[in-house]
């Protein structure tokens, strides 16, 4: 099918607002009536210069074409943008108070069991990706948690325990990998300092994420009183996604997630000594047989008439893997 090159920025706008959902969303982002967008598209009225800047920022997928076409009608516009050096950010609402209420309700009325923790973490991450992904960018969140060490040992690895993918995420989903000293999550947990990369393809990060669609990533530690339980990785398909306001939101959600963890799941920095984890391909191979190995451990315990719950068996199998107790690392 032959695509016609838009002749003006108004053509671009007209095409976008043919979709009622896009029209409504764009009007809200620019804080104008939707009919104003119609008038701009039809050439009945002109936007102000700050509206044009907002339009470009609200439509990241059309950024380049708009930046090229707008000055063709408004030559002064280019000069103003070069002179201002002010980046106009969409305002981002704060976390809804209902989520704080929900989390605190569970925290104060229930013993923090694995089930309660799962519920709180899942709800927080669901809302997190919903809110961050509301501008149509693909967003995903991964919560990597410190793996409990054996008695007297230090924390050697993290594991991706929770994942949430936004409705607009078009990329693949991933398994629950182990992350260590080689990873961004590992660096953030070790330092207890957040990090953000808005163009990861330029950064040559030694990541294990195996997700080609990711262009920007932010990592924020989950902390409490100077101790760390893990970190939240936020992935975006959009370059330069993590603006100041969005990072502020990442911080708030990460802090909220800290309420879902029990005291013994936080570790002081001096007890964090991450190993380098096996490559993703090796992990994938091992993880594909993980459940069967856990079942074997449970069956072995049963044969010996000793009680073992599934989480205990999982921990045992994981320790065998991480300590090189199998030949899968080769």
């Amino acid at each position, binding site marked *: 099918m032959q695509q016609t090159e838009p002749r003006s920025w108004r053509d671009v706008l007209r095409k976008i607002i043919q979709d*009622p*959902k896009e029209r*409504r*969303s764009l009007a*809200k982002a620019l804080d104008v009536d939707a009919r104003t967008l119609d008038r701009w598209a039809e050439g009945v009225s002109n936007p102000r210069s700050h509206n044009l800047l907002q339009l470009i920022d609200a439509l990241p997928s059309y950024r380049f074409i708009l930046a090229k076409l707008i000055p063709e009608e408004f030559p002064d516009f280019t000069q103003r943008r070069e002179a201002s050096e002010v980046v106009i950010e969409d305002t981002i*609402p704060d*976390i*809804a*108070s*209902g*989520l704080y*209420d*929900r*989390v605190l*309700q*569970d925290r104060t009325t*229930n013993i923090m069991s694995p*089930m*309660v923790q*799962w*519920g*709180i973490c*899942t*709800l927080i991450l*669901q*809302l997190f990706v*919903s*809110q961050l992904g*509301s501008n149509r960018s693909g967003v995903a969140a991964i919560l990597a948690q410190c793996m409990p060490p054996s008695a007297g040992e230090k924390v050697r690895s993290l594991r991706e325990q929770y994942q949430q993918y936004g*409705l607009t995420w078009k990329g693949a989903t991933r398994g629950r990998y182990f992350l260590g000293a080689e990873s961004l999550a590992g660096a953030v947990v070790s330092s207890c300092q957040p990090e953000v990369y808005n163009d990861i393809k330029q950064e040559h990060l030694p990541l294990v994420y195996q997700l080609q669609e990711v262009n920007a990533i932010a990592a924020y530690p989950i902390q409490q009183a100077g101790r760390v339980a893990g970190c939240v990785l936020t992935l975006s398909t959009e370059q330069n996604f993590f603006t100041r306001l969005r990072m502020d939101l990442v911080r708030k959600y990460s802090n909220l997630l800290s309420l879902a963890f029990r005291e013994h799941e936080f570790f002081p920095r001096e007890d964090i000594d991450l190993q380098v984890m096996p490559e993703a391909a090796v992990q994938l191979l091992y993880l594909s047989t993980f*459940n*069967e190995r*856990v*079942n074997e451990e*449970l069956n072995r315990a049963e044969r010996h008439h000793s009680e073992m*719950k*599934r989480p205990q068996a999982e921990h045992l199998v994981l320790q065998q893997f991480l300590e090189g107790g199998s030949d899968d690392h080769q």
Partner: protein
Amino acid sequence: MTTNNPGPQPTNAYVIDPESAAEMARLMLQDRTITQAMSGALPEDTDISLAHTILDIACGPGGWVLDMAAQYPDREVVGIDISTRMIDYARTQAETRTLTNATFRVMDVTQSLDFSDATFDLVNARFLFAFMSPRAWPGLLRECFRITRPSGTIRLTEGEAPLATSMASETLYGYFLQALQREGRALLPAGSRNFATSVFLRKYLHDAGCLDIQQRAYILDYSTGTPAHDIWCQNLDISLELMAPFLTREKVLTREEFDQLLIQLKKDHNSDDFYAFFFFLSSWGKKPGASTSSIRQPKQGSRKR
């Protein structure tokens, strides 16, 4: 149809604590998985053009309502549920996603619905079997019929117990059905091994006065290696664990017996040769239009208004 009716029949009693965050999170994941399995919030051949106001009954944390509101921003979508906490959370989600066309209200769906006649173009209800007793269905359908506009649609979706290569699964869902039977909430008599709710949907719609009733069956394959395996097994594991108080309260098994079965079920779920289907059915019918010459009168009942 005969039903086993040995004792008190509560008309509304959810088998899981609806206030828990785990149940809310589970329902959100379940909603999304089911919607994906159905290829969307509505069947592909549903004519949505005439549906401007839409109601979801027993909406829980609002997953279906929010998906519809996001997909159709120029429609008004309403969700109702008996749980204040579920409704509060649904509103939180709508606020977070800035879905101003989604609204939620606390309402007991086993009583008269607080809406005027002919309010909605589409009335939707998914998986009500977890709290609906057999005697409550006809009354609910009469109310749905009343609040649906002429030529509007009522759509019901219900599922059956999983069909799985796991004796632990068969046993646990057998106990669940037994517990429902003890409370007089099962559609079939003691000894039967199916929920059978889906079988009755056509009858409920017909008795309420609906015409042009259609049905569509869905199968969610959650065998090992399938896309739905991890998330659906997680859904079932969590729902069963949350259901444990209900099962032990009905004395169909002890807590120790339940724990052992759940351990075995999780082993089976994580086995390489685990095969399982979840079957569910959508039935929908139309309320006769104002110009329809042969409008069949719905069956009358003694429901309070």
